[in-house]
């Protein structure tokens, strides 16, 4: 046994991760100064400006991190469920204590500063998931095993989304799917997620585009063809017979050929033809799955039927369920609407800011887009613009690569655990960071709709910084305990 195992937390803690954390936080702080820089700017340490405040938040975060590392690792395990309960109560109470900030009811005022409890919820949910799924007797064998974990993330997510109207913060809980996947949830669930997003986008974007021949819309037909391909793929995968694939593909082509032939005389509703083809394949797969007793095909069949309904419901969801401001963000993103002064304003100004940075950037404090406040929320959600404009391509990919290394390091830490709960917690942390990075930078780069979530360690804000600190340093504490647990 190594001497360090019993000992000193400062020797066991993962300094590489801390180094990357510090690098990101300090670079973020520098950019907050740039983003909130005005012409009569005060010092970067002045508490009256945002950079000065962020400096204090960073110092606070270091203190918090130190305390978290000094606490006995078992404490976290003991306190998890209590904390979870307390967190639910706080989340429920928040809308009543909060004052309205741009339609969001998630901020509680504590004297001069405001706190956003949702930022701390992620950490506690991650611990709860880890504790529940990390038990010795827990295994993901069937869907039933995932009911409780889904509840653990679903309840706070719903409270945050419905009561606090913070869709972005609630969506972060979707990152736990990666944890479930790692612990044995079927990979198809991820594919279903991807398929759902793809079908949604296709049916919204092309739903109103008429087909060049016959009647029906490009969006629905494309979705149906996609489902046809999925059906055939799974039928053939189960049967492992090449000739059957050829027969199925042949018949489908035949049906479409006939439809086009008929179309010469009568306008054919191709949507219905395509839907008929999918339904025929569904019936076929149900029959053979019962006949061959391959019940997995039933799931595929059910999925197809669900998707037919889903495709047609997308439009309803889009028009009726989504808020107008969410709808317009999606429309702008999909290029269905040009709106450079309205919903597209942020995204367009962000694009100009980043693009005008070119290769080496305009230099620190020299970004005109940044300095003149053309990009709203530039020190919080749109902080990556400042990097793009003032540090250029070099600075931007530098930051992205540090984030990538940081996340990969977290996955590495997860994989070196002997304790399942810690491993799960580590994946939860990695997933949350990956989710934030993906959504935030994707939004700034105009690849994803505008969803207001911060860039970890970078965006201005005490709550988010301390929330991420909590998440990270508990992991580092648990990781440092690897050695001690061997005893």
């Amino acid at each position, binding site marked *: 046994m190594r001497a360090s195992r019993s000992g000193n937390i400062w020797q066991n803690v993962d300094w590489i991760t801390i180094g990357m954390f510090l690098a990101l936080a300090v670079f973020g702080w520098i950019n907050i100064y740039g983003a909130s820089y*005005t*012409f009569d700017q005060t010092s970067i340490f002045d508490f009256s400006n945002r950079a000065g405040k962020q400096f204090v938040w960073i110092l606070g975060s270091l203190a918090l991190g130190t305390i978290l590392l000094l606490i006995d690792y078992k404490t976290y395990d003991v306190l998890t469920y209590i904390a979870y309960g307390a967190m639910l109560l706080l989340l429920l109470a928040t809308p009543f204590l909060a004052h309205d900030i741009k339609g969001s009811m998630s901020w509680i005022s504590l004297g001069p500063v405001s706190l956003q409890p949702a930022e701390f919820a992620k950490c506690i949910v991650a611990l709860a998931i880890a504790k529940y799924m990390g038990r010795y007797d827990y295994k993901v064998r069937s869907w039933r095993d995932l009911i409780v974990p889904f509840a653990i993330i679903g309840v706070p997510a719903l409270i945050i989304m419905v009561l606090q109207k913070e869709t972005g913060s609630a969506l972060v809980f979707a990152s736990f799917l*990666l944890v479930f*996947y*790692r*612990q*044995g949830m079927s*990979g198809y669930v991820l594919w279903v997620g991807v398929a759902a997003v793809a079908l949604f986008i296709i049916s919204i974007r092309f739903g109103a585009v008429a087909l060049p021949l016959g009647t029906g819309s490009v969006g629905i037909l494309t979705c149906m063809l996609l489902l046809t391909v999925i059906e055939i793929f799974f039928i053939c995968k189960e049967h492992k017979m090449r000739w059957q694939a050829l027969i199925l593909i042949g018949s489908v082509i035949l049906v479409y050929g006939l439809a086009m032939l008929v179309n010469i005389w009568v306008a054919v509703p191709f949507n219905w033809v395509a839907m008929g083809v999918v339904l025929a394949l569904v019936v076929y797969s149900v029959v053979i799955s019962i006949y061959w007793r391959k019940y997995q095909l039933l799931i595929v069949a059910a999925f197809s039927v669900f998707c037919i309904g889903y495709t047609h419901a997308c439009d309803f969801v889009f028009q009726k369920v989504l808020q107008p401001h969410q709808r317009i963000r999606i429309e702008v993103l999909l290029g269905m609407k040009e709106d450079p002064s309205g919903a597209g304003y942020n995204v367009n*100004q962000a*694009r*100009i*800011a*980043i*693009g*005008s*940075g*070119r*290769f080496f950037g305009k230099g620190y404090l020299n970004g*005109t*887009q940044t*300095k*003149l*406040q*053309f990009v*709203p929320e530039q020190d919080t959600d749109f902080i990556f613009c400042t990097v*793009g*404009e003032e540090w*250029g*391509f070099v600075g*931007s*990919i530098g930051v*992205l*690569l540090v*984030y*990538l290394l940081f*996340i*990969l390091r977290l*996955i590495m830490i*997860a*994989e070196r*655990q*002997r304790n*399942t709960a810690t*491993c799960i917690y580590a*994946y939860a942390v*990695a*997933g949350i960071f*990956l989710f934030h*990075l*993906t959504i935030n*930078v*994707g939004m700034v*780069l*105009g*690849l994803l709709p505008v969803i207001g979530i911060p860039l970890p360690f970078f965006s201005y804000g005490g709550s988010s910084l301390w929330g991420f600190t909590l998440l990270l340093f508990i992991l580092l504490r648990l990781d440092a305990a690897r050695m001690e647990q061997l005893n």
Partner: protein
Amino acid sequence: MINDKFYRRRFVISGIAIVVVTVYIIRLFYLQIIDQSTKDQADNNALVKQTIYPSRGLIYDRNGELLVFNQPIYEITMTMREMGKEWDTTGFCKCLKISRAEFDERIAEIKDRKKNRGYSTWTPQIFMSQLKKEDIATLQESQFLYPGIQIQKRTLRDYTYKAAAHVLGSVGEVNQNDIDRDSYYARGDYSGRDGLERTYERQLRGEKGVEVLMRDSRGRMQGSYQDGALDKKAKAGTDLQTTIDIQLQLLAEELLAGKIGSAVAIEPKTGEILALASNPGWNPKVLVGKERSKNYSMLLKDPTKPLMNRATQATYPPGSTFKTIQALVCLEQGAITENTLYPCSGPQSTPIKCTHHHGSPVALDKAIEQSCNPYFWCAFRDLMQKDGYGKDNEDFRKRYELWREAVLEFGLGQRFQDTDLSEQSSGSIPTTKQYDRAYGKTGWKAITVRSLSIGQGEILTTPLQLANQAALIANEGYYITPHLNKNDSMLTHRHDVHIQKRYFEAVKDGMHRVMKYGTGRWYPIEDIEQAGKTGTAQNPHGKDHAIFIGFAPVEDPQIAVAVVVENAGFGATWACPVASMMMEQYLTGSVKRKDLKKKITTAVLNESVKKW
């Protein structure tokens, strides 16, 4: 976690992270390296080029008296955002003496983004412009009551004297044509529209400066870009000294009051124009500022055409003043000598009668003195018929062409090309072609064009050309192109006529006699010998035009003058005294003939002439 069933899934999760970052790096590569449009868009967002207007050059007269300068004017701007809800519109309207309806209308105009493209509630918008000091005085005192209101200063032209409007010209807003022709101008800029202001626009305007400012997302200015590295200072316009003697100019305009006509004075040795008066004119102050376009259209509508610079643009038959040239050409081309005598039968003379009574026969000196028409007809006839008519009228037509070329050398029948006078008419000395067309090649003889002998008929000259002709005779054979810029010596622009000097002495002697014994004898100046020639030009538009050319002092001419008074009658009665007093003014500094001055000044010959 080693040894668990889903160990390999960590590669999938790591892969997702790697794919996301890779996609984003590709996107960054596109935005920052490939897509070139964003640089300009960022500059358009942030940078505002603010023009700094230079002060326009001043204009002085030949003695250094200030004629044209810049006066401050004010514009009122408002920043909507700063105005607030409790803004006292009524009080504000009262300060500016405008009605509520006018206020609302102007605000609506400002807010209309179609008309006002740069509208922003954060930036100052021009509410009213070109206001005088007195217009804003009340508002200035209570400005603190109206947040968002700013009073800004610009400059307009102002004038020391209500004179020389045609010469000085005016400054007005540039039109699309100017902008297309000269990239210096932008919409809303001012430039010289006519007169000296136009001719010397490039000198007077100076050079605009530019200040590159940064504008934030709300349209507020946030200081200079790159610490002013791209800024350019404005360069003030260069002052201009004109050749005009403002006292002489004032006198000329005063004497022409109530009449339609013009007077031009030139310093013979230099070609400098000492006065260039055209009546009716206008007070140059009326074409300044916000009243400009209104007043301009009123001037345009006036039937007496005050906007026309009659001194350079109106053309008249020169009448008897042309006899001076006729004499010179006939002498040089050998038709007559100083001693040639022709008979005169007074009013009974044919084909042209004489309007004066004098002895007969007459020689050149007496003929000029008495303005004897028969003499000049005979001289002209003898010149034209010198070689006979020849085959197909050829010899006569050749002779006519020689005569015409000699006349052209006096600067008649064409514009002065090498001068700074912008508006000129060419006048006309008829060509052989014109007569060929009217009468056929063989259809016209000396008798056909007899009117030319006494400066009538198809000859047309401008007052400026007449004055120049007087200067040429004073110089005995050359003229310097008349011009208005004192700083620009035009001595190299010397035009010589090919006539011997002694002939000029003869003509000058005749002109001297005119002022001593002839038609001009009523207007002597104490101690100064004048020379001149009166003219009374018949014209189809009514009463004869009174014309006079002359110079003084005879022995060393300092000033040459031409005066035309339209439809006034005898040149001796209306044109000669004007010229004589101008010469007196220029040579002695004042007019001692007070009664004469008063008589001419107060005489109203044309009722419709207005004082603008």
